[in-house]
């Protein structure tokens, strides 16, 4: 059972989608129930992973490995191999949680073509989980591309007024990056063959050979940098990093609420996950190349500040949240390229935080939109008078998103900033601007929408949250408080993979203790657990 747990988690949503094919489309409530059951089942089957993973959190390497290399298409060396480490574990749990929440939140929001909607959503869920689980580059690529199709349809069919434009833009941008990545990985594939004599897409095998390209006299650093940029293009578009972000506001604004939640909560994380899983360990010398690193950091910082400034000026709530994602993801990439244990574990935690907070923000916007069918900030005012529960939940999530201590956002951002500070004080100083601006745009938004008296008569009779809606927020609030108050378990889960990553990229970096130090500082937790120093070295 334990050895197949990943496959079970992976295919539960797909099973639901296949089952839904046979339900007549007129029977909307049955479809909703089945979809919700399977989404919940997807979350429930992933829960046993928590204690099992916790027991092995300090052991090195990938866990719960399923399948052997090259078992799928032996002729080309592709395998159905799944496995997770701490980083993918957290993202998988985030995916199953958000998947359930977004399907639950669609109950009344989606009235047309209900059957297709849930089918595509469940297919999307499987695609996203596959991306985080695959230990074979080919398998990863298949999930990475296949997942674009349901998202394209979700935006294109159930989206807002400019849905066609937004959907195709999203699809084309992502495809452009991923085909570049495919070429780069084919190069690695042949390089691996020339080094070892085997054709394989197995990620642990490529970890061994890919870093050698930089020092190989036949190719050299120029090739390595080009290959890195092919990967960079794929992941930077997905994150999105600054000059590649233009698809994001369109896709987020036009997508249906649940689509935005998944897009912000999970899809963007695939980019940062890609950097951590592939770009860094494949090309450690390129990443540590001062010029490359300076560019990465600069783009992250521009993203942080630019995203925040643009958010400040938005008249549409959803657009504001969309641009705030650019800013928050800038923190994540900053953490990745600051390249020390604190910054990277902060970055992964911040990715989870962003999924929770921004997912909740999109739900919040969606709830108002469902009631009033407008997202113009100017249409609202004094909502806290008519919807007190809603206003409270919104406040919690806003505070979490802007990084108030005791809530999750603070822990992530603080750890990233701490790690960045250790590398370069100027970078950290610039990044702090983003935190300040986040407080500005979120609190200003809150003030305009919730405070004051109800000026618009249309808002006088708005209904407060119903139990189903409260249920969608409850797990998010619990998670926000948990990470905010006691993040130590999360840092412990991240410790081993992050240290190993840093050891690969920066051999000899004395960083194993800083993770725990930052965790303790952030959580003010007096407990001092002896940090287990994991075995350094490559996979």
């Amino acid at each position, binding site marked *: 059972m334990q050895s197949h747990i990943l496959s079970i988690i992976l295919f539960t949503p797909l099973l639901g989608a296949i089952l839904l094919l046979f339900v007549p489309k007129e029977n909307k409530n049955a479809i909703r129930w089945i979809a919700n059951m399977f989404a919940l089942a997807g979350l429930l089957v992933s829960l046993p992973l928590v204690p099992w993973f916790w027991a092995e959190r300090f052991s090195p390497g990938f866990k719960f490995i399923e399948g052997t*290399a*090259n078992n*799928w*298409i*032996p*002729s*080309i*060396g592709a395998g159905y191999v799944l496995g997770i480490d701490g980083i993918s574990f957290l993202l998988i749990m985030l995916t199953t949680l958000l998947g359930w929440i977004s399907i639950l939140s669609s109950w009344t929001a989606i009235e047309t073509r209900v059957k297709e909607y849930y089918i595509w959503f469940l297919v999307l869920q499987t695609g996203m989980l596959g991306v985080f689980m695959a230990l074979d580059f080919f398998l990863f*690529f*298949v999930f990475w*591309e*296949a997942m*674009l*199709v349901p998202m*394209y*349809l979700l935006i*294109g*069919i159930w989206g807002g007024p400019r*849905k*066609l434009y937004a*959907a*195709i833009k999203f*699809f*084309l941008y992502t*495809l*452009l990056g991923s*085909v*570049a990545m*495919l*070429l780069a990985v*084919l*190069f690695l*594939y*042949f390089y691996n*063959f020339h080094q070892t*004599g*085997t*054709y*394989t897409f197995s990620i642990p095998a490529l970890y061994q050979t890919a870093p050698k390209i930089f020092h190989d006299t036949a190719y050299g650093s120029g090739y390595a940098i080009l290959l890195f940029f092919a990967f960079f293009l794929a992941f930077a578009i997905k994150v999105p990093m600054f000059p590649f972000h233009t698809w994001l506001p369109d896709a987020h604004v036009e997508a249906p609420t649940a689509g935005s939640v998944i897009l912000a909560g999970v899809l963007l994380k695939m980019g940062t996950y890609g950097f951590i899983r592939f770009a860094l360990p494949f090309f450690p010398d390129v990443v540590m190349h001062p010029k490359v690193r300076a560019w990465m950091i600069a783009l992250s910082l521009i993203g942080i500040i630019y995203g925040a400034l643009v958010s400040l000026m938005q008249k549409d709530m959803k657009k504001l949240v969309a641009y705030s994602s650019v800013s928050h993801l800038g923190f994540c990439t900053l953490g990745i390229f600051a390249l020390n244990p604190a910054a990277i574990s902060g970055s992964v935690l911040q990715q989870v935080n962003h999924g929770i907070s921004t997912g909740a923000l999109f739900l919040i916007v969606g709830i108002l939109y469902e009631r009033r069918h407008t997202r113009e900030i100017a249409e609202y005012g004094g909502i806290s008078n008519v919807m007190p529960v809603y206003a409270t939940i919104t406040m919690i999530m806003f505070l979490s998103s802007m990084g108030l201590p005791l809530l999750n956002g603070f822990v992530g951002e603080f750890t990233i900033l701490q790690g960045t500070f250790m590398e370069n004080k100027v970078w950290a100083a610039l990044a702090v601007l983003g935190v300040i601006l986040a407080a500005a745009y979120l609190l200003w938004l809150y003030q305009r929408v919730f405070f004051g008296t109800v000026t618009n008569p249309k808002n006088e009779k708005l209904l407060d949250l119903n139990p189903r809606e409260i249920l969608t927020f409850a797990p998010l609030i619990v998670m926000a408080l948990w990470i905010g108050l006691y993040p130590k378990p999360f840092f412990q889960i991240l410790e081993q993979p992050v240290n190993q990553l840093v050891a690969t990229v920066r051999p000899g970096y004395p960083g194993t203790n800083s993770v725990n130090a930052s965790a303790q500082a952030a959580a003010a937790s007096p407990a001092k657990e002896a940090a287990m120093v994991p075995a350094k070295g490559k996979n």
Partner: protein
Amino acid sequence: MVTVAQMFERSDYLMSLPILLLTIFALGILMMDLILPTEMKWVNAVTAFMGVVFATAGVLRIQWALDNSRRVWMPAFVGSMVIDHFTLYFWYLFLAGTAVAILMSVHYMDQEREQHGEFYALMLFSVVGMMCMAAGFDIVLIFIGLELMAISTYVLVGFLRRDRRSNEAALKYLLLGAFSSGIFAYGLSLLYGLTGSTNLAIIRDRLTRDMALTQNHADPVAILALITVATGLLFKVAAVPFHQWAPDAYEGAPTSITGFMSVAVKAAAWAMLIRVLGMGLYPLRTVWVPLLIFVSLATMTAANLAALTQNNLKRLLAYSSIAHVGYMLLGAVAYGSATETAAMTDGVKGILLYLLVYTFMNLGAFAVITSLRRRDVIGDEIDDIAGLFSRAPTEAVLMLVFLLSLAGIPPLAGFWGKYFIFLSLIETGHYVLAAVAVLYAVFGLYYYMRIASAMFMRQALDTERIRAGGAMWGALWVSLAATLVIGVYPEPFIRLVNWSLNVSNNPAIANLVR
């Protein structure tokens, strides 16, 4: 002195078994058609289908004989025909494409009120021509096969006698096709003059010898021969700048014939191209590789850009099919420029696998368009397919699968065609070409998704539900099954292509598989 009768061996009759069977069935249809009443014309289609089935059995028999002989190839008809796995692979491919195209035609030709026996007979005759092209090892046989196929196709394109578009298409195709055949024949005659033989193996050996004598400086006459032959070949596969006939012919032809032309006819042209360029003219590869690089870049650029603005589905798919030729040509480039055996086979492997997956996904797409045809609606504009999901959900989803496969999204079959092409390019160090090719794949996605967004995201202009006949559903489901199965589990098909090229798995991989 050996008499002509002594030159034939008994095995020659076996080797021509599928060709003979198809000819007999075609002639049978022509005679049977005279006595069949109008409402019974569908029997012609059944007979043609049976002919394909019998021919397949014949190919299986030949394969059995070949396997038993423990040889990798057998000559037939004094070396003018070669039966090897490559030939058999293409024969199976032609027969599969033809079978699906026949299934697509039955109901459609009723709708067009052009249900005649000649239609199916001509299809079978053109398959006979294709088989000669794929098996031909002698430029005379290849040319005869080419002409048989081409003339049958000219008639098929113009089969809708009452439709001006169809007549125009047939005339254009005939004029341009005859012109290109003339150039091709001229090139072949130059080759004969240079080498004194019509056999491809002898041509190759003589050219190799001549090249060695002149320190790899190709004889100007050889270059002229190469360029004229290449012109004929590139015309037949519809590569830019010899593609102008394709959009018109594809648009005007009966839709099921458009599908047939874009897969079977094209596959035959590719078989011929690989045999002639890759075998006979291989010594001149230093000349034709740059030529093909130029042609493939021009093809991908022109076809992808032109496809962006098309509003007619058949025209759009015609340009897309030209674009696919551009990718396949890159496989030939990799083959020609490779120095290692593995890289050489990877290039051809890419082409063969591409043709296999393309056969099914493209026929599937054309089958959906064919099913849109009703008495009063031609149904080949993008507007006709708008809102298809509300009119025919199953067909809309099938079309989506075919389009995504054409765009090369994994895990669908079309991805594997592109994958092996890119693989062979990276393997032979053509990084820039590979980068350009993937860039055009993004263009491709845009125009395929235009169709998809029309089907799923627009309102239907016409609310009548679409009903497809049983044969059409057969064609659709076969195409879908092939597209999905090859996409998700390509291993047996990669092995099939390896088998057709007589490469066992790479030793490096063989070790892994154990």
